[in-house]
């Protein structure tokens, strides 16, 4: 049993590494993490006044300087640190809370489920940004506040997805067998069911991280982060405060925005990859595509493939 389980995971990991979309995403993410980690050693001081404010890109400052005379390249690279850290931390916490609440809600039916799914739905329907703004404005600004606020407003979606997955597992034979053999419920949830949800949990983590990076940047752009630190959000906050737009200094907001987009897109690519490798429907489709030329696949008509040699 365990052996079989291991081989599925190894197959997934090999599949993901072979998948072109996923590997592109993974490489991009690692590149950003690498740059963020090395940042302070390879760039100029991101907070020092180095040159005339708002000077365009030059040999000395590859991406020009911002309204405070700081080097934009250095700011973009070191901004990745806190932004990615908060993003991934939020991603992990959101998945943990989602798995806990969604898992319990889906496993136990009845009153517990009624209450928890009501809670999930209430949080889902509440608009995130205004709630985040209220929370963040009362709390002292900083990464801890950001993470807390993002987790509180973002957990519900994952809990909902995990809950419905849990409900389908709950009715499978292996769960009934475990219950009959006297296993404790917590043990069934954590050791029997959760490992089988690994691909869902992984893609939930990635989805939550994308959300966290975007929402975090939005909040900091509003001025709700700690504006004295260098992050992607505060970079855009200062760009907008220093009238980068109306002075035509595009180099002030383009690098940061592009970085955010590239990271989110890379994460989306990884998610596509995970989906292609683990989703049975897409696996079947890939088998067809390999066996039959695309043009012969007519809409709505299932081609028959003899898969046994």
């Amino acid at each position, binding site marked *: 049993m365990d052996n079989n389980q291991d081989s599925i995971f190894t197959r997934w990991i090999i599949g993901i590494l072979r998948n072109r979309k996923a590997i592109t995403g993974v490489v991009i993410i690692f590149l950003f993490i690498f740059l963020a980690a090395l940042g302070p050693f390879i760039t100029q001081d991101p907070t020092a006044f180095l040159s005339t404010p708002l000077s365009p890109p030059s040999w000395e400052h590859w991406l020009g300087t911002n309204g405070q005379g700081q080097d934009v390249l250095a700011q973009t690279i070191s901004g990745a640190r806190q932004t990615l850290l908060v993003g991934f931390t939020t991603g992990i916490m959101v998945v943990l809370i989602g798995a806990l609440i969604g898992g319990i809600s889906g496993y136990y039916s009845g009153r517990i489920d009624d209450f928890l799914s*009501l809670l999930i*739905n*209430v949080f*889902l*329907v*509440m*608009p*995130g*940004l*205004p*709630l985040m*703004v*209220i*929370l963040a*404005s*009362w*709390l002292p600004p900083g990464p801890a506040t950001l993470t807390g606020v993002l987790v509180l407003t973002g957990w519900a979606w994952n809990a909902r997805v995990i809950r419905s997955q849990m409900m389908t597992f709950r009715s499978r034979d292996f769960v009934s067998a475990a219950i009959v053999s006297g296993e404790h419920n917590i043990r069934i949830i954590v050791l029997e069911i959760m490992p089988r949800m690994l691909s869902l949990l992984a893609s939930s983590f990635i989805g939550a991280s*994308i959300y966290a990076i*975007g*929402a975090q*940047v*939005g909040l900091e*752009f*509003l*001025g*709700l982060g700690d504006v004295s630190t260098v992050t992607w959000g505060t970079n*855009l906050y200062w*760009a*907008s405060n220093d009238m980068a*737009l*109306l002075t*035509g200094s*595009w180099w002030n*907001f*383009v690098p*940061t*925005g592009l970085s*955010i*987009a*590239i990271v*989110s*897109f890379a994460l*989306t690519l990884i998610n596509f990859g995970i989906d292609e490798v683990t989703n049975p429907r897409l696996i079947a489709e890939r088998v067809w595509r390999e066996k039959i030329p*695309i043009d012969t*696949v007519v*809409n*709505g*008509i*299932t081609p028959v493939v003899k898969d046994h040699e």
Partner: protein
Amino acid sequence: MNQSLNYLLRRLGFYFIAAWAALTLNFFIPRLMPGDPAAIIFARFRGKLKPEAINALRETFGLTDEPLLGQYWSYLKSILQGDLGISIAYFPEPVTNIISSALLWTIFLAGFSLIISFSLGTLLGTIIAWKRSGKLDSTLPPVLAFVGAFPYFWLAMVALYIFGFELSWFPLGHAYGDDVTPGFNMPFILSALYHAALPALTMILVSLGGWMLSMRNIMITTLGTDYISFAHAKGLSSRLIMLRYAARNAILPNFTGFGMALGFVLSGALLTEIIFSYPGQGYLLLQAVRAQDFPLMQGLFMTITFAVLAANWMVDIAVLFFDPRTRK
């Protein structure tokens, strides 16, 4: 018919619970913060506020010496009477007045862009799912997924920079020109549309991909079902199968998703408004954050929540209308 009424009432009950939860959160957030909320407010505004303003604040938050439950009751009562307190940034204007004057602009801008991007995205999703592995299907999803990866407000910045600042095709902000008088007249309407065009276009561009992809995925599942094969076998025309057989069913989960995504899309719309200095809720939110105007922020949270809940209920009614199965 009885059952569908029952369903709508049940949903309405849920929205009341959600509204109550939002109200309660709104009440407890300031009180659960480390330190005394009154002390936090007064410390932040030391010397900047008139005594009347401080009294108004105290009143808004119900920070009296009453026990907590008593405060909560008087808070609920005043909210139900439409009293959201007095703004600090626009003192002594009541929050309700400020918000209601900006509400129409947000509904106009966000509502229109939402409806256009939902309809267009759903239509594109239907077409690319139908012509699978065609040129459109292999180019559109990745391109729109990449566009969707940008933060809304950042794309708005770039659009404003290119089309407003560099090319001067569109105005740099505000909802209508200085030379028109607000009212029901042609120049004003044209000016309002002209000012809304660029923010609306950026919002549509960013959110289009999401609707398209979800429609495509549901559509593909629907296309694999037996009744579609049967329709093919009967020799019905492709267009009929695509629109009346497959899309009509596939759109239903998308509708439900519409309600869910509303809050999320609205958050993006608020940030877009800020970039374009569009005088809606988002712009107020920025003013509120800048001035640390807590009553205005909380009023905005309440209004936006109520608006989203109301819109969700309308979506429920629409689903009931489109899906005969729920009407049994």
